[in-house]
């Protein structure tokens, strides 16, 4: 009988699922999946996790319908970086700063938004009412990614944890 059957046939009412939740979200492969999903989606689409197409404040002021200001586009072209969307990836420091902070009752995606003495949010104030609003929008997993996280990562980790307890 497979894992489903093994789990089904045992009484696990005393298991602390909160501890298992923390353990699962502390796993390296799960953190990697979450971070890579956010970073890649942002890089290839220029939109945040909840679907906002990023445009800098200066680009908005210039009114040309471009994601970046004309000056930034010149810099980006010089570095062979995409100019048709805001990627939040210049040196890659922002992507590398992302991590998952997991506890028994919560799991939060966090990152360092400070860059050269200022906050990345300072460039997007016309789109977001606060830093917190910006942070939540950027560090959000898209719904399809969230479903894959549940189906391909969490369920498998949960099964492994339960089977470990079962075989103790």
């Amino acid at each position, binding site marked *: 009988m497979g894992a489903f*059957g093994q*789990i*089904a046939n045992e*009484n696990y009412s005393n298991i602390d*699922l909160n501890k298992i*939740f923390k353990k699962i979200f502390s796993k390296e492969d799960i953190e990697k999946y979450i971070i890579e999903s956010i970073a890649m989606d942002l890089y290839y689409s220029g939109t945040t996790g909840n679907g906002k197409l990023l445009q800098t404040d200066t680009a908005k002021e210039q009114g040309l319908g471009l994601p970046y200001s004309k000056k930034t586009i010149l810099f980006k072209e010089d570095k062979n970086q995409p100019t048709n969307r805001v990627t939040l990836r210049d040196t890659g420091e922002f992507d590398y700063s992302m991590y998952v902070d997991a506890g*028994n*009752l919560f*799991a939060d995606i966090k990152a360092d938004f400070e860059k050269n003495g200022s906050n990345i949010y300072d460039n997007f104030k016309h789109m977001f009412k606060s830093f917190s609003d910006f942070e939540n929008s950027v560090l959000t997993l898209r719904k399809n990614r969230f479903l894959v996280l549940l*189906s391909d990562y969490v369920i498998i980790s949960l099964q492994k944890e339960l089977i470990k307890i079962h075989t103790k």
Partner: protein
Amino acid sequence: MKEIISFNGILYHISDFTFDFAKSKDNTMTKNRYNNIIGKKPNKAVEKEDKETVENGKKATKKKGK
């Protein structure tokens, strides 16, 4: 055990992450229940297997209760 947890600032019932396991009266976790949670349509091919899983779960629970 606390049933309400937060993932990225949004509150969920822990069973959203543990696939109804926490709420299951007979301690079973079937593939169709799991598919339902991840938004897939119930699959007839696994229904038979699920039925057996639930029956086995009920039998095991009864035995333990005796």
